[in-house]
């Protein structure tokens, strides 16, 4: 249940650990948006996400859209099985909103 910030210069990588679900949605929203807002090349590492639900998916979609609005690109680096499973189920890809 950590949010590890391994930022190095302009390229910031935020590693979300633990659940990415409705239980933590309220907590994660400002964190994710902050990454998008403050870094030029925001990156999320989802390799340690243990649980991922619709609320988590929504958060990613919002963060990505916010990045696009700011003329940035949100990179996703690494995806845990939980994330991959949900992405596959929802027909999402790590790149675009809908592949």
């Amino acid at each position, binding site marked *: 249940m950590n949010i590890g910030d391994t930022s190095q210069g302009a390229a910031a990588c935020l590693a979300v650990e633990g659940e990415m*679900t*409705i*239980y933590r*949605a*309220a907590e*994660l*929203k400002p964190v994710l*948006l902050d990454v*998008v807002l403050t870094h030029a090349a925001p990156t999320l590492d989802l390799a340690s996400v243990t649980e991922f*639900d*619709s*609320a988590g*998916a*929504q*958060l990613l*979609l*919002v*963060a990505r*859209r*916010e990045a696009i*609005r700011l003329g940035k690109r949100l990179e996703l680096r690494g995806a845990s099985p939980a994330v991959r499973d*949900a992405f596959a*189920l*929802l*027909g*999402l890809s790590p790149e675009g*909103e*809908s592949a």
Partner: protein
Amino acid sequence: MSIAIDQVTVTFIAESRELLEQMETALLAVARDGQDAVNAIFRAAHTIKGSAGMFGLDTVVEFTHVAESVLDKVRDGDVDVTDELVALLLACRDHIGTLVDAVESGTLDGNDDLAAAGAPLVAALQAYLLAPVPAQEPAARAPAATEAEADDGHWHISLRFGRDVLRNGMDPLSFIRYLGQLGTITGIATLADDLPDADTFDPESCYLGFEIGFAGSADKATIDGVFDFVREDCQIRILPPENRIAEYVAWLDELPEQRERLGQMLVRCGSVTAHELELALAAQAAAAAPAQPIGEILVGQGAVRAPVVEAALAKQRQAPEARAQHENRSVRVDADKLDRLINLVGELMIAGASANLVARRAQNAELLECTSTLSGLVEEVRDSALQLRMVKIGATFNRFQRVVHDVARELGKDIRLDVSGEDTELDKTVVERIGDPLTHLVRNAMDHGIEPAEVRAARGKPAQGTVALNAFHDSGSIVIEVSDDGGGLKRERILAKAVERGLVEAGRSLTDKEIFNLIFEPGFSTAEQVTNLSGRGVGMDVVKRNILALRGSVDIASTEGVGTTVTVRLPLTLAIINGFQVGVGRSVFVIPMDMVEECIEFRELPCCDWVDLRGQPLPFVRLRERFAVAGSAARRQSIVVVRYGGRKAGLVVDSLLGEFQTVIKPLGKVFAGARFLSGSSILGNGEVALILDMAALLAGVETESQAAAA
């Protein structure tokens, strides 16, 4: 959030239990109702499986799935409904019930005992699945086959989840996952168009929508059932496989602003090919110059379906819809909350009574007016509050269908249960506690009452025995009758046994009623089972004790060779009664109002323990003597004539105080041994009044009354 999820689980448990009850009722009625009952059983099993799947209760899903598969075969006519199958399915129903209980107690996971208990059932079910399809009735199977074919196809499901779905503890993902278990999801598109700006985005609201292509043999009701739990929060549209282009076009027309985008999505989900869509849209555009009504295309919906399939689907859809409406009109409330409300109403009444008293003493007309309006309202509040706790006895009665079914099998007798008066209402607390005594009575009637088939035949009775349950209201009580058309009680043998046990003196003449009531005596049944002798008498004393504890009474009537009827009389509620207050010396006693017939002046006949009531002898009890109240009797005494269970008697009192609402407070343990008292109450002035236990008081009078009448 965890609270919300707990609540959802509670709902799941409650609903599962309801469904299991429906399943049981349907199972027991399957011989009579045929296909309707089979459909109901299937639906119940299916819904339980569905909701269990949503909660990830794999154990429940796996087990229910096997049962459902067998039921599916039954539905298609591949497996005949035999007694053995019904018994097996009843056992499965019980096992699902146990699993649900385990969910409630949190002991479901890794419970080897449960798995061991389920295994033989699963094996027995598998036998039905593997059984070769009976060769007979090929004609009947043919339509079933076409039905399956017609339903196997590409569905398109459009979902728009409501904002609160996540907050209510449900995850859209799990619905889609569960849908995936019913068939194959051929394609899915996630709609995030409703997602607001980052600033206004509420991370706990749901903004998602999905377009799903789905292939599987499930029918519409089944697919629809997946979304039972979110139906209210969600826009769902399920487009069936046939005629789909026209429907898609119609649907696209309904949402013109998103038309192009949705069209693309349909293509992406594999629901239509791009070519098909283009053709259809073009054709419609060409034909639609004078605005071809969309409705027409919509009417086309289902028109191509075989009428058989349509009828079957309509039937399946009806039930959930009716239930949904019903659910909207009722609210589940914690029983504890209701109890608290009733308690508060009780306190309110006591406070109201004391305000009334003060007002009367103050002689302030305005205040009196106010308090009288107030007490009227309080009374209404009390009635509605009590009404909240009233439940129909039907549910309790219906449970006995199962008891009768099982016990009849066990005994090898053919017995049927007749139920009447199911709509009679009584307090929930009474209902909860009447189950055991009733079960005992019903089992007794079946075991000892109903004769073996040969004996019945010899007596010219129908081979099938009947046990009947009946309920009705009678002067403030509810009366429940358990009757059978069996051999009846054998008077002489009971008497002989009672004499042997030392319960009655030999040579004393007793009425039939007294003799029959002997079987409720503790000494009568414990020593040895009387089964072989008198016909019944196992644990009847326990039944009587339980009923007395509910302030009720029990009576028995029987005719040898014709049958027996046990009559249980219970108060409607355990909390508040309309009481008639009487004074003896400085003490106040309360007589339940429903039992008071009239009040007359007491004119003592010399050396008699009865008075003349319009030519009828009326036995009486002097409360002053009974309770050893100090002081001499008032100059003018009155008699309150009470009726209880068909008997009449008089109570001699000093003064009549009138009718008051009485909140029953249980007597403390210290008074547990006090006879003739059933409870206490607090008066408006803070004093305590004792509530008389009519059953006990009048029991003593009865013998005297008969002596007097003779």
